[in-house]
């Protein structure tokens, strides 16, 4: 089967699901690619947990302002309509449910929506959690952007996370290079397949029961 979407294409796919007017936090790493993929002309307000709403793209060379960083400490810019606030207010926005969407990376996501993305549990690892736990429990919709498989070929979608958790039952949707999964009370539902991936492939890779709502039916059960 084909490899599915590359990271840029997956970022673009996620960007399509972000409605105009949404307040969005893009986690450190791959999710920051979504910023560049947002549809031109739509107003989507980016939040960065270090105290800014209305964050703009990376500045031009020579215009790097050390006082304007995103959560990954990368230089950013300020858009008209921006505002600044301190850390307690910024995390109050998350915890208080005022962000519409956050997109996070993941080590593992369970079929119940548990998220593990901060700590491998390795004894020599230096733990660092940052704002991930706050984002995980705070945003109205917590989306994960990740490859389906680790470099070792293990599924990141699992029955129960084996890595230390970031948040309990917090993920609502998982965008992977192979497929998009909605987390529902009844488990994971595949809503979209990429490349020539089939639902049977996914079931074999992840070892999970997966309901099909992809609209691509081959030998699968009907959309429920």
């Amino acid at each position, binding site marked *: 089967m084909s490899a599915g979407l590359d990271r840029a294409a997956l970022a673009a796919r996620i960007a399509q699901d972000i409605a105009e007017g949404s307040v969005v936090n893009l986690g450190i790493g791959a999710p920051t690619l979504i910023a560049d993929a947002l549809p031109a002309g739509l107003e989507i307000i980016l939040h*960065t*947990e*270090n*105290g*800014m709403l209305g964050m703009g793209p990376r500045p031009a060379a*020579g*215009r*790097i*302002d*050390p*006082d*304007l*960083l995103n959560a990954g*400490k990368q230089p950013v810019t*300020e858009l008209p309509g921006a505002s*600044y*606030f*301190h*850390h*307690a207010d*910024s*995390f*109050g926005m*998350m*915890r208080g449910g005022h962000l519409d969407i956050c997109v996070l990376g993941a080590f593992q996501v369970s079929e119940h929506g548990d998220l593990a993305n901060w*700590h491998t549990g390795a004894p*020599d690892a*230096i*733990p*660092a*959690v*940052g*704002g*991930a*736990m*706050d984002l995980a*429990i*705070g945003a109205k919709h917590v989306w994960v952007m990740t490859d389906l498989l680790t470099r070792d070929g293990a599924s990141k979608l699992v029955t129960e996370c084996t890595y*230390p*958790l*970031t*948040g*309990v039952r917090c993920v609502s949707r998982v965008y992977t290079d192979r497929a998009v999964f909605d987390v529902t009370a009844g488990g994971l539902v595949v809503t979209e397949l990429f490349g020539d991936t089939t639902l049977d492939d996914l079931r074999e890779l992840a070892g999970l029961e997966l309901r099909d709502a992809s609209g691509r039916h081959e030998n699968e059960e009907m959309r429920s």
Partner: protein
Amino acid sequence: MISKVHENVLEAVSGIADGSTVMIGGFGRAGQPVELIDALLAGSATALTVVSNNAGNGDAGLAALVGSGRVAKIVCSFPRQVDSHVFDAVYRAGRIELELVPQGNLAERIRAAGAGIGAFYTPTGFGTLVAEGKETRSIDGRDYVLEYPLKADVALISALRGDRWGNLVYRGTSRNFGPIMAAAAATTIAQVDEVVELGSLDPEAVVTPGLFVDRVVAVGERPWLRDGVFVGAEAAS
């Protein structure tokens, strides 16, 4: 006449005792009070507990303080970074204690100390390692962890401008932890680019009211600013 203005950073950081808890503002390098940290390094205070979001970037500022061996413990959310080699080495050598706190709980605990809140229930971290051994409670169907205030003997923060009453304004994302740390410390020391005349800061735009600030010291304009306006990154570090 009230004047909290100190002549230089050495004077501004004087009197920090061994064993003090010191909050240090900044998120990465933005808002990190590098000159005050250098002045603290020039002194002898040791066995410090540092509360800061990160554990130092590169080799200067907080990284140098951590590298000096005078930080016994750090309370932070994100010690491990691309450029946190100083902390990494000290930590792996077992020479520093780490209390890892999710960033929002860190901010809220600092805020609680400044606002006189005895403890609070936060949803962040429930069901994770950082909540182990902590009291929990379900309220209106949501699960929470009980967290306590984080206060400090001293806060070192960086702002754009200040006046002799200690009123402060910041710039961009360098605001971050400054305002809440200022309120959580017994003694708050603020470095500013410039000390301005009393009355020249817009009262509607003051971010840290002067009652939270004990000492103000001007460290001069940063190379990428002119009169507080960004002039490009040519000279920036």
